[in-house]
């Protein structure tokens, strides 16, 4: 029964995307908010992440894009008056925040009840010691372990259990700070690090189960003690790799019913004992290779990445049901919406196999061979469904968009296959495939050595066998077999040595119905397969296919998913049917009620064309899902698709470097000098022609991969030698004039081909050279001349008219010495569209969809007749977007910013003043600026002049300033006296000593350039580890001064987004 003792519920979001906490929490949050609204509750939402669907006006009653700190939440309690908070939808962030609110007595003060998981249940599940005790009382086995709060205690535990040991800090997300200590030497440093990252300085040292099999159960339990397993998941990768980094399959494949039921019963017993009584949890198990021992690893008393995956793998909406349970319902009171007939108190039965393949950013965050461990490193994941394991595996690898055309052998030139086969590495399963395909016969030995269940090695053998037959000669029967095994035409073609595929087989669709066909499905969630009966009826020409963005990666993630989701809603409001295609299980776009039909399929032309044929429609939207769909546009149009909005020809004119240069010239605009080098010598030559500094990059860029700024010939040389860059006729390197210290801008607009509506112009805080996705950006521009802004508007209009842009366009500009340059034009939605839409109060996606439907901007009421340009305004005055990084996951990555995008997420700070907005953006990014204390300044020569007024202001605001020798000397010469702190190599106590002792409250440290990297690397990595706020540019430091001024006023203001 619905709880009537609560009226108004605050849902806590998970904040910015970081590794281990991504858009799955947008998905769960959206489901929760909808479920609660349906029940008639007033719903408030706090989440400073502007890229989310959940912060779309109209979804919750009150939306606050404010920092996730107790202070701001308290303010919301005061202002909006919720009487309950839902703690389980915002990942570890929301759980920790709930515990903090409880500890500080804030919940009690405002009479706010915790729903979802109680503080006690969270404590029991998260506190490793308590959890272990509970396992013992349940008669379940957990790994031998000990708790330590200090190095001495850790050494005692090591003596008892012996190495290798798994080290896990308590209360961290995504296994952060976790590691495996195999040797005596690495033990103490790993323990130190783990103690550091645990907010309670507590770690668990555990017997190593490396090489065991790993399993997960997604469990729901209600207040009447009804409990169900929504989904069982088997990790194909053995223990020792974080489940988020593992290839997984649902349901469990290799356990007998007796083994499975033992695990199932244990999961339910655990939820009962921990006290999860109105929601979902994830329980993880390990089973020894001989299946003799079953060990409970851990449980998460909340929705999680795994539960989002389980929802998409089964069709069972865990977050939605969890929210209903949280407000008092029982499982048997809730209808299963997928069937519309059965109740939610049942266990989904699957007649397909669901495989998840994680996606890594090996180019941006290179990993040594054995780098995977207890800490999650992947940035995204792809899900594929197939009728057989191999079909799902082949589809999932293709879906991961890592240039893997299914189960494929690794190139021996590129990889040390033997090493990878025995290391925890993302390419490990494919390394095993390579060995098997090359003739390895002894699968039992391979299984013993690697910990992979023989079942999953046999799957590889079967694929290798099929590959071999195809290479020996393809016939139609074999082609059919290959299609049914999930192989792409492209892969079959390359194996068969044919140039043109002589065969074709139509794909069919199956519905995900939660019940293996037992009841007819009412919701439209499908996948494609081959050689079986087709179930779907075509939606017909009224339907439009929206191509989403696939697995999250750096530079292409949640923002684009939000664009796709909002476009589906906009289309449906206008009476058109929508078909969403995506492979990313974490997203809202793959929720079963976002579109009229959903296909979980790899984002490749082959699948999209089959969907077009099946659905009997040609309209395809490619401009909302980032670069992935855009790259398919040509292949799709050639095969008969109608690309909605801006034409393919125009897309090509902006994407192709030469065409684009011509366009810029024809329109009389300006872009930085640019050349192309096809050999090392030519690159040098062109660089000299343009003049240093130059920006080097490959064509067709996504997120700025392998970009580099060379200041002179020497550093250009280093680019080739140290960064292992290859250049050839077919892989030229682009050489651009680099506009040092230029101001950069992002402009997002919608055009109907004749006029433009500019959502807003963003000015970057960091100067050119820092990737736009990594830079903080201010809306509206905070220091620029009106005439420059005017020029941007006029240029945008020119481009829009010339290209006949229909829909969204994004332009990046740079301004140096009063001159405007176009850096790039993207004829598609950009990362900043959701942010601009919310900050300006105009849903640009909706505007674009209306343009697609033929409603020009005048008809939409955005422009007056005869007007050509209009522009949005920031609704609060100032909105600042700050990039958020996951550097704390990669101990050895330098957090200094550069032309390569490396941020994983973003937050917004909104305020009446610049200071307020910036302070909030930093707090949201968990870079909480101090109001007093000690600042250390260490900047490069170039920045010494710019830093002076900043140092002075900080001094006047009461901060004590320490500077490194050179900085201190130059500041002194500029009339500012500071104390001197030693650099690392200068002795003790040095900067790092201060950082480690936490005797510093803010660090301003700009990179010293390519040559002096080592010493300042240490400063920045230590700073991150110590959680001390820092800035790596002087412009950010200057913004920080404004923010500190705001903070010193001691007010926390929360601003509700205007309702729609």
């Amino acid at each position, binding site marked *: 029964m619905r709880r009537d003792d609560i009226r108004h519920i605050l849902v806590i979001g998970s904040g910015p995307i970081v590794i281990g906490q991504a858009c799955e929490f947008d998905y769960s949050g959206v489901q929760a908010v909808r479920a609660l609204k349906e029940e008639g509750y007033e719903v408030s939402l706090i989440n400073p992440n502007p890229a989310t669907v959940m912060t779309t006006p109209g979804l919750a009653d009150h939306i606050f894009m404010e920092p996730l700190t107790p202070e701001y939440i308290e303010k919301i309690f005061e202002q909006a008056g919720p009487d309950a908070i839902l703690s389980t939808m915002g990942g570890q962030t929301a759980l920790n925040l709930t515990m903090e609110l409880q500890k500080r007595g804030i919940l009690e003060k405002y009479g706010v009840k915790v729903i979802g998981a109680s503080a006690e249940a969270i404590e029991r599940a998260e506190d490793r010691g308590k959890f272990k005790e509970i396992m013992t009382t349940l008669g379940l086995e957990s790994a031998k372990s000990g708790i330590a709060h200090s190095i001495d205690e850790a050494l005692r535990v090591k003596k008892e259990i012996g190495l290798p040991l798994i080290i896990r800090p308590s209360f961290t997300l995504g296994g952060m700070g976790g590691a495996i200590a195999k040797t005596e030497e690495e033990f103490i440093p790993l323990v130190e690090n783990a103690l550091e990252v645990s907010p309670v300085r507590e770690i668990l040292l555990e017997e190593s189960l490396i090489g065991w099999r790993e399993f997960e159960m997604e469990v729901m339990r209600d207040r009447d003690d009804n409990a169900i397993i929504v989904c069982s998941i088997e990790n194909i990768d053995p223990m020792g790799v974080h489940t988020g980094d593992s290839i997984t399959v649902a349901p469990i494949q290799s356990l007998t*019913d007796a083994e499975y039921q033992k695990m199932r*019963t244990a999961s*339910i017993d655990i939820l009962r004992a921990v006290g999860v009584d109105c929601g979902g949890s994830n329980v993880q198990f390990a089973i020894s290779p001989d*299946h003799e021992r079953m060990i409970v690893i851990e449980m998460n008393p909340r929705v999680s990445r795994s539960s989002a995956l389980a929802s998409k793998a089964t069709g069972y909406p865990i977050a939605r049901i969890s929210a209903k349970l949280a407000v008092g319902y029982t499982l*048997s009171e809730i209808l299963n919406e997928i069937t519309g007939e059965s*109740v939610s108190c049942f266990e989904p039965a699957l*007649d397909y196999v669901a495989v998840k393949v994680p996606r890594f950013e090996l180019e941006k965050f290179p990993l040594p061979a054995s780098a995977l461990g207890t800490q999650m490193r992947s940035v995204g994941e792809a899900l594929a469904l197939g009728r057989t394991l191999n079909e799902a595996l082949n589809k999932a690898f293709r879906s991961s968009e890592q240039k893997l055309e299914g189960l494929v052998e690794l190139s021996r030139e590129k990889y040390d296959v033997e090493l990878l086969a025995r290391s925890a590495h993302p390419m490990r399963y494919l390394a095993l495939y390579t060995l098997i395909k090359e003739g390895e016969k002894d699968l039992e030995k391979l299984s013993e050595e690697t910990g992979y269940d023989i*079942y999953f090695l046999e799957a590889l053998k079967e694929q290798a066998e099929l590959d071999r037959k195809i290479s020996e000669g393809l016939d139609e029967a074999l082609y059919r077999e290959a299609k049914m095994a999930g192989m792409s035409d492209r892969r079959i073609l390359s194996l068969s040595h044919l140039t043109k595929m002589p065969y074709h087989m139509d794909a069919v669709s199956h519905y995900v119905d939660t019940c*293996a066909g037992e009841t007819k499905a009412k919701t439209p969630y499908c996948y494609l397969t081959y050689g*079986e009966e087709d179930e779907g009826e075509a939606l017909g020409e009224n339907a439009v296919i929206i191509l989403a963005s696939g697995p999250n990666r750096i530079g292409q993630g949640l923002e684009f998913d939000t664009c796709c989701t909002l476009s589906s809603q906009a289309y449906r409001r206008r009476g058109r049917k929508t078909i969403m295609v995506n492979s990313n299980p974490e997203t809202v776009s793959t929720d079963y009620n976002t579109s009229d039909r959903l296909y979980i399929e790899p984002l490749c032309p082959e699948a999209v064309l089959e969907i077009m044929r099946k659905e009997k429609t040609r309209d395809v939207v490619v401009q909302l899902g980032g670069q992935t769909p855009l790259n398919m546009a040509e292949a799709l149009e050639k095969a008969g698709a109608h690309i909605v909005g801006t034409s393919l020809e125009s897309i090509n004119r902006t994407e192709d470097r030469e065409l684009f240069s011509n366009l810029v010239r024809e329109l009389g605009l300006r872009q930085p000098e640019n050349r192309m080098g096809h050999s090392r010598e030519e690159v040098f030559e062109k660089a000299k022609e343009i003049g240093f500094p130059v920006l080097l990059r490959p064509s067709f860029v996504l997120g700025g991969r392998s970009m580099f700024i060379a200041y002179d010939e020497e550093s250009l040389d280093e680019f080739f030698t140290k960064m292992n860059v290859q250049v050839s006729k077919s892989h030229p390197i682009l050489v651009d004039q680099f506009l040092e210290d230029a101001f950069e801008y992002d402009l997002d607009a919608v055009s109907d081909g004749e006029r433009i509506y500019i959502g807003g112009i963003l000015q970057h805080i960091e100067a050119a050279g820092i990737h736009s996705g990594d830079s903080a950006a201010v809306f509206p521009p905070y220091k620029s001349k009106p005439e420059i802004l005017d020029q941007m508007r006029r240029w945008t209009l020119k481009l829009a008219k010339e290209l006949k842009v229909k829909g969204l366009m994004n332009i990046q500009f740079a301004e140096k010495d009063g001159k405007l340059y176009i850096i790039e034009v993207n004829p598609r939605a950009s990362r900043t569209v959701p942010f601009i839409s919310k900050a300006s109060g105009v849903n640009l996606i909706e505007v674009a969809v209306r343009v697609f439907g033929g409603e020009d901007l005048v008809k939409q009421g955005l422009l007056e007749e005869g007007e050509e340009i209009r522009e949005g305004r920031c609704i609060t005055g100032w909105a600042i977007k700050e990039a958020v990084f996951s550097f704390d996951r990669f101990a050895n990555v330098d957090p200094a910013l550069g032309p390569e995008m490396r941020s994983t997420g973003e937050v917004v700070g909104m305020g009446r003043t610049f200071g307020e907005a910036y302070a909030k953006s930093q707090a949201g990014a968990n870079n909480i600026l101090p109001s007093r204390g000690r600042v250390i300044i260490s900047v490069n020569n170039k920045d010494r002049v710019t830093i002076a007024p900043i140092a002075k202001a900080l001094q006047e605001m009461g901060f004590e300033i320490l500077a490194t020798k050179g900085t201190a000397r130059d500041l002194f010469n500029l009339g500012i006296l500071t104390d001197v702190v030693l650099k690392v190599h200068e002795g003790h106590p040095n900067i790092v000593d201060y950082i480690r002792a936490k005797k510093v409250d803010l660090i301003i440290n700009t990179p010293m350039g390519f040559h002096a990297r080592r010493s300042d690397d240490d400063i920045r990595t230590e700073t991150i580890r110590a959680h001390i706020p820092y800035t790596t540019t002087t412009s950010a430091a200057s913004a920080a001064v404004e923010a500190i001024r705001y903070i010193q006023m001691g007010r926390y203001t929360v601003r509700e987004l205007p309702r729609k």
Partner: protein
Amino acid sequence: MKKAILKLKDGKEFSGIAFGAPIKLECSEVVFNTGTPGYEEILTDPSYKGQIVTLTSPMIGNYGIAVKDGESSGVKSTALIIKKLYRGSVMKGRLSLDEYLKKEGIPALEAVDTRALTIHLREHGSQNGILFYEEDRAEAEKKLESYPDITKMDLIEQVTVTENIYNPELGEGRTSPPSSPDMHFALIDYGLKRSIIENFYKRNIAVTLMKASTTAEDVLKLSPDCLFLSNGPGDPSLLKNAVALARECMGKIPVEGICLGHQIITLALGGKTVKMKFGHHGSNQPVKDMDTGKTFVTAQNHGFMSDEKSLPGSVRVWMRNANDNTVEGLYDEKKKVYSVQFHPEAAPGPEDALWIFDYFKEKAKR
């Protein structure tokens, strides 16, 4: 790899690749089971006697056959229909599914569009079918044409014990009979799953396993604490002897049952049973205890059910299926009669209803 065909009575055909033992042109009712693991338990469940089982779970044979997990002495279903057979190696001490079926003489078909078959059975109801190689088509079709409906076949004789046995041993890896039992049940074998006996042993209950032809007199002579009617295959309304046995014992000793036993009890109480369109076969059926309001997930395998309207007023509907509201359990306190339609012993399936055995024991106490 030889191709073969499954043909249904209504004419629909499904092709696949034969494995297991050679096809013997045997007709049977075709049903589907939606459980995920548990093919070994399903194959050996005597309730599937006279049925061709389709598994909706697509990957089958993955962990081989452990033999000790079997629910009776061998495969009871006529044939097995699946999407994909695992042909790789299995753990030491286990047999591969293909080897096992060959040994048991059971034919099977893989590479079948089991989803289309399931949907067909859902839409058109369970019905007879036959497996054959193309060359045997004419003979197979003739057989299928004349083969009787399951409602006309007494299958019990083929699965019941031939001799009454006190406390039978259940085999390696299974619970032994209690040495000093505190109760004794007369357990009628209509095609019993051994997990039912095991659950009695675990609760310190001795059993006398008795033939299906047992009479009330035979039972009462043993003065057991309870008459317990097992699960089993086929249409309960054909089992006149069983119904009489139950009716005659009612009021004298507690009478309890599972699945077919529950249906026999329904008939003995004066109610009726009806055939369901495609039944409940799987490991995910939610059942609600009407007395406590609690819902739990159960293993089920039945094509017939109690007709609620026909139940006399003294009988209370104890359990209901939370999806379709059908009767899943009943009792008559006065007569000390208790029964459930689902399988509390699971095997395969969730163990959430094991408490029913405690309840059965409690209710059988004098």
